[in-house]
């Protein structure tokens, strides 16, 4: 039979070449370098007891402002504390504040945004105007005030203050998403069957809007860490005794006078590297999101 008919037009060797390109696997898009560095830093902070060579809060008054050497790997600060130990110990506080503040702000944003999205027109308008007014008050000012009301700052009060002042932009996004989602049949059906607010939020709304706020949430961790360090640096955040990357940097004015670069550079480099890793992970999330949207 094969002799009778001849294949024309299709060249078999060409057809084989046209195998569709291999699609990117899920792990190709992840910025591995950032993830590994971030895991190293977070792990080092979590298990700081194993790494630390000295007691981070012990003030060795004989050895103050010593440049990095064998005994003090990253040198000592102006109060004689070992910077190497402080970095890992203080990283805990900084990272904790970053995550706790984000949890608080995301929680508020989800509740507020959903209420505003599900609410009737006039209430929605009122709530959104309120957020805009809150957004328009300078952030630093509100933080200073709240901190003053709460009294002396500690890790918890600071995360609370940062969390409570940074939920507005996420809430706005959630509200827009919920406005679009609320007219879907499944939401209406769930409401007709008597589903409560939190049930609908958890079952129907949150799975739909979570992907669009993920990027903002990751970026919120970043800005919370920056805010903690800025506040501690200016002197309204954590006091000197509570070690964090920010409060370590608040010694830098004294360090500037003596030219002790390691007191300024080393905690800062850790801070910046952590922020960079978080940013690249956030960017990766955003890119994935955009890809999905363009496919639709």
């Amino acid at each position: 039979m094969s002799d009778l008919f001849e294949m024309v037009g299709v060249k078999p060797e060409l057809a084989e070449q046209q195998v569709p390109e291999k699609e990117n696997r899920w792990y190709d898009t992840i910025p591995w370098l950032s993830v590994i560095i971030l895991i190293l830093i977070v792990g080092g902070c979590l298990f700081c007891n194993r790494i630390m060579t000295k007691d981070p809060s012990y003030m060795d008054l004989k050895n103050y402002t010593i440049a990095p050497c064998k005994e003090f790997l990253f040198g000592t600060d102006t109060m004689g504390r070992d910077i190497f130990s402080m970095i890992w110990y203080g990283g805990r506080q900084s990272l904790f504040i970053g995550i706790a503040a984000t949890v608080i702000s995301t929680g508020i944003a989800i509740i507020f945004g959903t209420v505003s999205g599900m609410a009737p027109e006039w209430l929605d308008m009122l709530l959104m105007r309120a957020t805009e007014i809150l957004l328009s008050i300078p952030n630093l000012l509100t933080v200073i005030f709240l901190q003053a009301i709460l009294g002396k700052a500690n890790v918890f009060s600071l995360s609370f203050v940062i969390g409570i002042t940074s939920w507005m932009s996420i809430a706005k996004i959630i509200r827009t998403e919920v406005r679009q989602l609320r007219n879907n049949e499944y939401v209406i059906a769930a409401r007709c069957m008597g589903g409560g607010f939190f049930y609908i939020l958890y079952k129907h709304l949150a799975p739909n809007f979570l992907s669009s706020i993920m990027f903002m949430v990751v970026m919120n961790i970043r800005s919370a860490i920056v805010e903690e360090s800025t506040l501690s640096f200016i002197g309204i955040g954590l006091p000197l005794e509570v070690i964090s990357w920010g409060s370590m940097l608040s010694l830098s004015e004294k360090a500037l006078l003596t030219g002790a670069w390691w007191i300024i550079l080393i905690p800062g480099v850790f801070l910046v590297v952590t922020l960079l890793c978080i940013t690249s992970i956030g960017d990766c999330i955003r890119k994935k999101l955009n890809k999905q949207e363009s496919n639709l």
Partner: protein
Amino acid sequence: MLYYGKKLVIFMISVGLLSLVTFYVSRLAPGDPLFSYYGERVEKMSPEEREWAEEKLGLNDKISVQYSRWINQVFHGNFGRSYKYKMDVLDVLKSRLGNTLLLGGTGFLIIFAGALLLGVICAWKEGGWLDKIICKAGTIISCVPEFWLALVLILVFSVSLRWLPSSGAYAVGQEKNISDRILHMILPLTVIVTEHLWYYGYMVRNKMLDEIRADYVLLAKAKGIKKSRIMLVHCMRNIMPSYLSIMAISVTHIMGGTYVAETVFSYPGIGTLAYESARYKDYNLLMIISLMSGIIIIACNMAAQILNERIDPRMRISRQSEMQEVDNYE
């Protein structure tokens, strides 16, 4: 006309609310305002003297009474005296406002032009090495906290190299010397600009990239119009309205950045003044600073909204057609 009237009403309400909130919160916060007026002497005061002092400054009334008195004074153009400087707060503010305007204004102009330039360059060379380098560098720089960048700059340029002064707006007795002022402005200005430049540059880049994928660009190209003309004339016209409204909002961010930079470089501007007054409970000064910042911010947000809704002819047409649709429907 009705449109602007509405905006004005919302503006007034926002400012009023802002003043109320700031007033209450600042009074509720712990701390001793007498300390900023009398300094160390407060600790040695007897209870009677304290009471007399509080009476004199009007601090022992209820907060609501204090607020209504303050509002009443404000409408008569009297913003009260600063406890710390013992002068009219307007005079205190006037002495510092110029410095901040100079720093923040120059920063804003550089950011405005620079972001546009960077964004257009990146979009022009999309995917090329220049674009990649600028994007990477921009991401890294935007991760650096502002105050730390300031510290490193001080460390390098004033402590190690001794090229530039590390603090103040001018050397002692050199108030009128322009070159000295510029020298003092370089470091704070660098901090403000680098912190914000890429954020807006990236925005312009993405907007531009969206724009050059539009159909009219293809048409223009088919007509044989040069690439530079398409990008700088045709596309630019389309991204300008949204860029302008973004830049109107950016005033807020740049102002915040200016405040932080001022504190680190101890530059005598509004930022350091705000920090001082919040710290030492200099109530009258605090009120006028937060009111002024708030007014600028709210005004900028409104300007952005108006720009968004009014300036872009496309918006106007779409609104008209919407209205017509509604009419037809009825």
